[in-house]
């Protein structure tokens, strides 16, 4: 058994320094496309390229808005376009939430109090994800990200949980288990929706058997876009939920509500 101790020590510390310092390793994040000013000729072609209607014309002339709730990382606005969309390799994407009725919640209202800042227990519910979001959440437990150092812990029971982290578009069969889990959690509690599917239904919903995101059933406090969001983005979401990082906006270009862009 001593061999395991030895290999553990020999591996040294691999953990990222985020959030104290930026992480620069290649491949940690797929990045997200950027809205803003584009040439008039490109605007309509880029809008038509996007299969999920994540790209829409901006409110001012010759500009584009990218709705991150819908972006599914298909890269068609890059590989298929004459002028590709600008792309940025960040990961601090987590935005504030939406109540069930679609009204954005205030910037402060949804944070867990300071008492929770360094000991937060999370329950994860898989509401129909494809395995990617769940796997990326799982990576938070690996030595590269190690969320324990920031005071985040996974718990298998809702009774001990402060944060409900939901992945997947919310299938009809998972609706009841999800609601039961939410109800079983003590207050104060917060909901984080992780991934484009959990935010808008992604490529799956809405349909006869899958919803258009978790927001239809629960008030979502923090939205983490990405398909899947890389571990660092989810970590950013957790830090936003406890008020240790500032939230980003869910759209790039200008704010729009999910209902404003038609499917």
């Amino acid at each position, binding site marked *: *058994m001593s*061999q*395991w*101790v030895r*290999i*553990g020590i020999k591996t040294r510390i*691999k953990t990222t320094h985020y959030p104290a310092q930026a992480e620069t390793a*290649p*491949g*940690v994040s*797929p*990045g997200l496309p950027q809205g803003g000013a584009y040439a008039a000729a490109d605007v309509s072609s880029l809008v038509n390229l996007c*299969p999920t209607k994540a790209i829409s014309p901006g409110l001012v002339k010759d500009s584009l808005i990218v709705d991150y709730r819908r972006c*599914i*990382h*298909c*890269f*068609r606005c*890059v*590989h*298929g376009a004459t002028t590709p969309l600008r792309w940025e390799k960040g990961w601090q994407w987590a935005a504030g939430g939406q109540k069930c009725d679609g009204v954005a919640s205030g910037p402060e209202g949804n944070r867990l109090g300071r008492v929770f800042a360094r000991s937060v227990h999370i329950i*994860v*519910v*898989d*509401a*129909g*994800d*494809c*395995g*990617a979001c*769940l*796997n*990326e*959440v*799982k*990576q938070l437990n*690996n*030595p*590269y*990200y190690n969320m324990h150092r920031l005071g985040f812990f*996974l*718990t*298998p029971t*809702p009774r001990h949980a402060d944060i409900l982290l939901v992945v997947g578009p919310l*299938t*009809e*069969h*998972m609706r009841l*288990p999800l609601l039961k889990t939410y109800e079983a959690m003590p207050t104060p509690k917060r909901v984080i929706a992780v991934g484009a599917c959990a935010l808008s239904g992604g*490529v*799956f*919903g*809405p*349909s*006869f*058997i*899958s919803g258009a995101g978790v927001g239809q059933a629960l008030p979502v406090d923090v939205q983490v876009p990405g*398909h*899947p969001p*890389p571990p660092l983005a989810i970590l950013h979401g957790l830090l936003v939920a406890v008020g240790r990082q500032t939230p980003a906006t869910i759209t790039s270009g200008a704010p729009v509500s999910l209902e404003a862009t038609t499917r």
Partner: protein
Amino acid sequence: MNSSDLSQQMAQRWHDQVRMHTEPQRSCCEMECPAGLLPEIARWLFAELDYSFAGLIVEEDPAQWALRYEFHRAREDAPVQVLVRRALDEKTFPSISDCVHAADWHEREAEDMFGLLFEGHPRLGDFILHDDVWPEGVEPMRHQFNAQRSVPERRPNPHWRLRRIVQAPGAFAMPIGPVFSGLAESVHFQLETVGEDVIRCVPRLFYKYRGIEKIAEGRSPEDVLLLAERFCATSAFAHALSFSQAMETIGGVAPPPRARRLRVFLAELERLRHHVAALEGICESTALTVAASQMALLQEELLRLGGALTGHRYLFGLLTPGGLRCDLEDGACRRAIAATRDILRRLRQLEKMLQFSSSFLDRLEEVGVVGTKDARTHGLVGPVARASGVVRDLRKVLPYCDYEAFTFETPMESEGDGYARLRILFAEAAQSASIMQQAGAALCAGPVHTPCPSRPGAALGWVEAPRGAAFCWLRISEDGQVARYRLMPPSFANWHGLHLATENFAFQDFPIILATFDLSVAENDR
């Protein structure tokens, strides 16, 4: 046996009751037979000629049902499709699952989704559409069912219970899931026990059913490609590849050589990453945390490798019918190969250390044993089947993407226990790294895409996904849209066989058996 030998034998047995068509372009031989003969023919192919059953494809033509039973065997033999047609109002078909156990869940699925009946099937009912959520008589896969509208009147029945089989004094059922244990996918287990030992375990799946096959209908192939790639991310590249290959067969195009090599390269990268993740799961289930952390490091490195190479950690957005959407640089591929070489070296070191950790081995050896005969009749696939002595690797049996040009051996073990499955995973991971090197060395200059038209027609697509043989059936209608996209993923076959490994076992072995079976719920629930 080539198709003319097969048709001779068929003619001897059944005279002109069976009609054979061979379509060289689809490299598939189709036998049409009356419904009554189906069990006999299925038995003949499966039990006497040693064909494997790949799946059942149900199609609703305007006037009739067409049920296609897919069989395949060895490299020399074309895959065989047994076709049965019946008028739409005749909804009863004979069941073949008493001989071909692998057809069991396919028949249950057809019953649930199309409202067909399979005579002689012992257990139809609650399967994909959960009986406690859906009213009776919903048949979502029928054409008249609108995939976009939600079904009104759904009142979950809180008193509904899964059927229990074990009836003994003191017997009780332990429910687990669908929300359980930190980071597990949503699935429910009913463990029936009379005390210490669990007598049987019934998984209840499809909590995550997203109806991919239904929502694909009427969409453009480009849109369905997104679904193919995204219904199971841990083998996304494999499923997108099988879809693309079906499109290419229908369109009659072959992707350029460079694209084929790169596809092999990326498919093996995905397999390597998947196997490392599976090994991590096994280490975790036995509470060997240091080993699990080491595997987790390797997995993250492979994810980053994919991210740096293709832009996406799970290789999304790269495949397209006709080739790849963008080219990869030779230099980047060489760097990736160098990185995998290092990863493989560390994986080998971990393998050696695990082989000397007796407390770890004790928990895997003779746990969750599946015998060769069971593995064969239940149609298990992939590493799980190979650990039980059933080697059918589609890369060898029905080669695609020029896999025949690479040298590799499909590993095989015969014990069928957890340890055998672990060894298979290690051996295959090493092989994937070696195929990556060969594919990288064979990269030639040239384009990576040829246009692939969306012609009307139907074809079978297949790949050896990380978890085993994955088939899909694709039909394109006259207007170029997808008319039917049937998925037959490996996890569907292996979940069906899980009960073989979970009979009379100690409760604490349950997570270990699950981890060594390496199942994906997302892939099964599609």
